[in-house]
């Protein structure tokens, strides 16, 4: 009897060990996994478009509240209220807790606080020091100095991000973005992104062309190490791609003709031509007035010196800095630059595409005195 009791108790304890698993199985049995969104596609302006779509649905299906007037229609969506007006103008210091829709233009003074999303069908101007949850504009959007956006910004027209403005998420425009010093965002995407001090004059290039180093080297080239390049360290990985053992700091203009993997730091002198992709296991530094046609990828930090022209994608595992005068554009697709650390944009930068960072994208002002001393034009 005792043995029987002991057996029953043991079996019960044994089952308890598996009882949660058994219950979970009963719940899951017969079901299919459905956690993947098969229709997902990545869109840079997803937040803005998703908000517009939802708003359109709400305004077309919800009845206007009884206290609506000709100049202000009110809609109730659950616990939220939506205010719709033809034109909106707020004085300084105003606080609003509703979703706001301006069918025409929208303007507000300084230090306002809009706790919910704002939709503007015309042009929009936001005063200094104002805080917003998020804003979408179908016209031009101008953010004053030190504005804070807690989520995203999207504009169909030109987007001006004032000095010291902080955007926690994406800033997108279908026209152009002007990104002024001190401002930061997590990513920017537009047909054209420009920082302050834009100057489209071509950089002055050297009149004296020194020895150009070609990688891979040509038959007949010296096998001796020179200009920071040692041919003995260059190996073929097959498929037209090469690997270089150790740091590669080329002190003369470089003409790169094949994809290269550098197992160390990579840097090249000014006026180099990089026609293929480069990967560096550490840092990458590109000399002034160089042309980069291939992709640049590094596990460390990346620096593009003044007046570099890139037509590709930049990816850095550390920080990235694009110096004064850098240009990024290509014919069929936008360019992109992404850094895991901070991505810093100096003055006079124009990029057709995207800049993003897992940390933040920051615009800084380049002092004129520094430019006179250090740029490729000197």
């Amino acid at each position, binding site marked *: 009897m005792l043995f029987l009791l002991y057996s029953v108790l043991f079996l019960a304890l044994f089952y308890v060990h598996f009882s949660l698993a058994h219950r979970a199985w009963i719940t899951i049995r017969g079901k299919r996994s459905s956690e993947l969104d098969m229709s997902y596609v990545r869109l840079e302006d997803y937040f803005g478009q998703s908000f517009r779509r939802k708003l359109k649905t709400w305004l077309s299906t919800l009845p206007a509240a009884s206290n609506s007037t000709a100049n202000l229609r009110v809609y109730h969506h659950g616990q939220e209220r939506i205010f719709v007006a033809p034109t909106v103008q707020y004085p300084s210091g105003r606080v609003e807790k509703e979703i706001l829709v301006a069918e025409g233009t929208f303007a507000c003074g300084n230090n306002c606080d809009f706790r919910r999303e704002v939709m503007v069908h015309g042009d929009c101007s936001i005063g200094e020091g104002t805080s917003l949850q998020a804003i979408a504009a179908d016209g031009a959007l101008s953010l004053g100095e030190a504005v804070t956006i807690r989520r995203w910004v999207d504009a169909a027209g030109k987007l001006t991000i004032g000095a010291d403005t902080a955007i926690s998420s994406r800033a997108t425009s279908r026209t152009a973005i002007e990104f002024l010093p001190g401002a930061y965002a997590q990513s920017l995407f537009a047909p054209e992104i420009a920082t302050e001090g834009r100057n489209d004059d071509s950089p002055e290039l050297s009149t004296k062309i020194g020895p150009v180093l070609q990688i891979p080297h040509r038959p007949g080239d010296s096998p001796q190490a020179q200009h920071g390049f040692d041919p003995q360290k260059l190996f073929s990985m097959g498929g037209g791609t090469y690997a270089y053992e150790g740091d590669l700091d080329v002190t003369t203009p470089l003409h790169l003709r094949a994809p290269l993997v550098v197992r160390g730091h990579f840097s090249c002198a000014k006026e180099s031509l990089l026609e293929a992709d480069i990967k560096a296991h550490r840092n990458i530094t590109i000399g002034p007035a160089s042309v980069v046609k291939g992709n640049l990828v590094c596990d460390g930090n990346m620096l593009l010196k003044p007046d570099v022209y890139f037509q590709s994608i930049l990816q850095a595992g550390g920080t990235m800095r694009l110096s004064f005068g850098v240009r990024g554009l290509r014919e069929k*697709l936008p360019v992109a630059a992404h850094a895991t650390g901070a991505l810093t944009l100096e003055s006079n930068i124009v990029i057709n595409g995207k800049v993003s960072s897992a940390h933040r994208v920051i615009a800084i002002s380049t002092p004129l005195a520094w430019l006179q001393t250090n740029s490729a034009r000197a």
Partner: protein
Amino acid sequence: MAITALIIFSWTLIGIAMIVLSAYAVRHYYLAYSRMRIAHPRETNELVGFVMPRITVFVPMHNEERVARDVLQALVDCDYDWELLEVIPVNDRSTDGTRAIVDDFARRYPFIKPYHRSEGVGGKPAALVEATVNATGEIYLMFDADYVPGRAVLKMLTAPFLDPEIGAVMGRVVPHNIGDSLLSGLLSLERSAGYQSVQQARFNLGFTAQFGGTVGGVRAAALRAVGGWNPESLTEDTDLTFALLLSGWRTAYVNRAECYEEVPQDWNVRRRQLSRWVTGHTECLHNYWPDLVRARFLTRGEKWDAIFLLAMYLTAPIIVLGWLASLVLFFVPEAHAVPVLPFAMLIIGYQLFSNQATFLEIGVATLLDGTRLRALLMPLSLLNFFANTGAICNALRKFYWNRFWGSGGDGWYKTHRTRPGSDGKGFGLNQAPTGAARQSLNGLYHANSEGMGD
């Protein structure tokens, strides 16, 4: 004398088992920990859509009439520009309606170019060797016929190739038939841990990910550089991973490139699948370990990681030998020189330490996936563990027996499909949009796509 020798031998076996299993346990604890702590420096999610080379998508098929429409329709609905896309369904000696389905899609979509095979060596690698000859893409992507890629998967898998060091890429497979049997539910845990925890952690740490032969791709130039597909390997994907690694190429892992798959529901099917993997993997270990040890391009950590990866199936017979040695020591009275209780506590404590590593990985994966209900199935993984151990030991026995006697091993075995036909409607899965697929070269802006009107 004999008893003493037996005792010493048993202790030696236990010692070896504990050392090897401890090494694996420490490795897996570290992978689970680093998955939670280390950021993703090589993530390319922000660059999806900016890397748009010409690609060729291969879909090997052998009697796949039940599932062929789903995968082809899913590829048609992908948001990759059709002018840069080539889809090659590889019809490998099918005797059912596969050919008719494939030809129907080819008539409607010019970028679908079937390759029909009626003779030659059977199996996926041999079929790919032939089909690759006329491919025009810079990047070759592969999907098995029972997979259903989402709309963005092609772009996600292509993005890592902006890095010239990347020779191959692997996405993530997600079982969709989790509730069809207890086995499929347990395998979903195994897959979660394998991809969400282990693959991602290894990639974050700078090790090469493992190319799995489906929901993945390879750079055409890199494939040619290493001599193409190995038609004699049962796991041409593992073989390719290490052939690329030894030439300096890396494999990237894209966790976000998720694709549904169908896992075995039946223990017999699972056993045969596992047998193929064990044989192929162990064959790669024998083929590549000397070169891995000598490889100039690899750090010491990378070499150890690669060896651990290839040798993982050898842990099963080591565990079994350890058990047998424990039994011997337990039943041989002369072995009780050590006090029994501390010995038992040591063994139990050690088991807890080493086994919890795997459960930690599963727990981390289900936490990150948000599938906590499924995590409760973990105690039942014990059944899977014993079944796997038996299947792996049997497969290794056959492998070494064939190797010793120089006889042929297992041939290629196609995993049985259980999903019923759905006429391209993606049975049981989320619906892809119907109507004309978007073909925009730059679909980075919201642009008048179905279901998302202004």
